[in-house]
């Protein structure tokens, strides 16, 4: 057998050392959570859930890089709640916590570490979380939407996180209550989040076949403009490849 040159061993050792030092200086972890959305309907309780994988990473701050760390969904989807004849509700990876980065920040908000989430202690806390579960407050709820026609993204409508009042969408216009959108007797009951090792949810494109082909925003526009339709994009519905 041919002997591996000493220089190759030195190079491999150097690479391993740099990798180990980098991992210690800039730790990261991946955590999965299941979000479950429950509504009351005249036909009884309806629920839907989705499992998402979130990366929490400390970032190097070289050359003016401003970000100390990032938390974001690497794979996962909006929660889908099938309300039968009333329609389908989607709980997006966008909302009152972190805005467009909601899918990641809801994890660190629902389960606060007590430390900087990007510190070694903070990341260690999220590595150690197992089977934790909590119920979100309405302020922590995701943005809810529905499509009057599932085949037409331009029929999107926002739904208020409160059952007793309309709320601004944040992009101009109002999100109406579940009763106003879906009909009498339909109310949001609760949203929970729990740490899991279950498989990440896939398959939203079966319900929204236009989604993977969407370029730019769901309006079809390249630019983000006024109104919800011109601000939602496929990243609100799924992360990861399709």
């Amino acid at each position, binding site marked *: 057998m041919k002997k591996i040159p000493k220089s190759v061993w030195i190079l491999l050792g150097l690479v391993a050392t740099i990798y180990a030092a980098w991992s210690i200086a800039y730790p*990261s972890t*991946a955590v999965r959570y299941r979000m479950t959305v429950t509504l009351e309907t005249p036909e009884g309780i309806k629920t839907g859930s989705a499992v998402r994988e979130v*990366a929490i*990473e400390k*970032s*190097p*701050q*070289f*050359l*003016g*890089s*401003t*970000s100390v760390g*990032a938390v*974001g*969904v*690497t794979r996962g989807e909006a929660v889908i709640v099938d309300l039968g004849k009333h329609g389908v509700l989607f709980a997006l990876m966008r*909302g*009152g916590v972190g*805005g*467009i*980065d909601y899918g*990641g920040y809801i994890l660190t908000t629902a389960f606060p570490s007590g430390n900087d989430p990007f510190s070694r202690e903070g990341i260690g806390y999220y590595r150690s979380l197992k089977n934790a579960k909590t119920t979100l407050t*309405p*302020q922590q709820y995701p943005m809810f939407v529905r499509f009057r026609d599932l085949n037409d993204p331009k029929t999107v409508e926002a739904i208020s*996180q409160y059952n007793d009042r309309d*709320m*601004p969408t*944040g*992009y*101009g216009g109002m999100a109406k209550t579940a009763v106003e959108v879906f009909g009498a007797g339909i109310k949001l009951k609760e949203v929970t989040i729990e740490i899991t090792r279950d498989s990440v949810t896939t398959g939203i494109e079966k319900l929204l076949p236009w989604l993977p082909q969407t*370029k*730019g*925003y769901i309006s079809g526009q*390249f*630019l*983000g*403009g*006024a109104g919800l339709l*011109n*601000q939602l*994009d*496929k*990243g609100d519905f799924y*992360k990861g490849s399709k």
Partner: protein
Amino acid sequence: MDDTLFKAILAMDSYNRGYNYGIDLNIRNANGDIIQQSDAPDITHIGNATVYKNLGNADAQNIGFYGIAYTLSSGNVVISYRGTDSLFGTSTIGSDWYNGYGVALGHPDGPEGAMAFSFYNAVDLAAADNVSISTTGHSLGGGLVNGERNNSLSGSA
């Protein structure tokens, strides 16, 4: 306010809006609910500027790009490009070094440079014919501006 100083403020403002923001500029009510997103077009103001268009969707995040256009009280438009916020990228945000730093080496046609150019052209197409469009940016954002200046577009880095 001096025009150059205001453009410098807008250059920094792009770090605080859209995804991976530095400062949370979302407007909330007393209950803590977001009632206005930080970069909502037509309703978000900074000084005498109003957010006109933005680009920070999933495709932009994948390459680490964020751009925002403002309309001034004069009717003219300023485009601000965010600079380096994630040098090597993360699992969810593209690396600025990989996707953008080519502009410093004379290659403005990398992913971020190409998207900056597309953003400029789309804003130009959307704006009225008599509107003047200028660009601004800090750090890598300034590099993207300079990449465009080489294509005879006006800007401040």
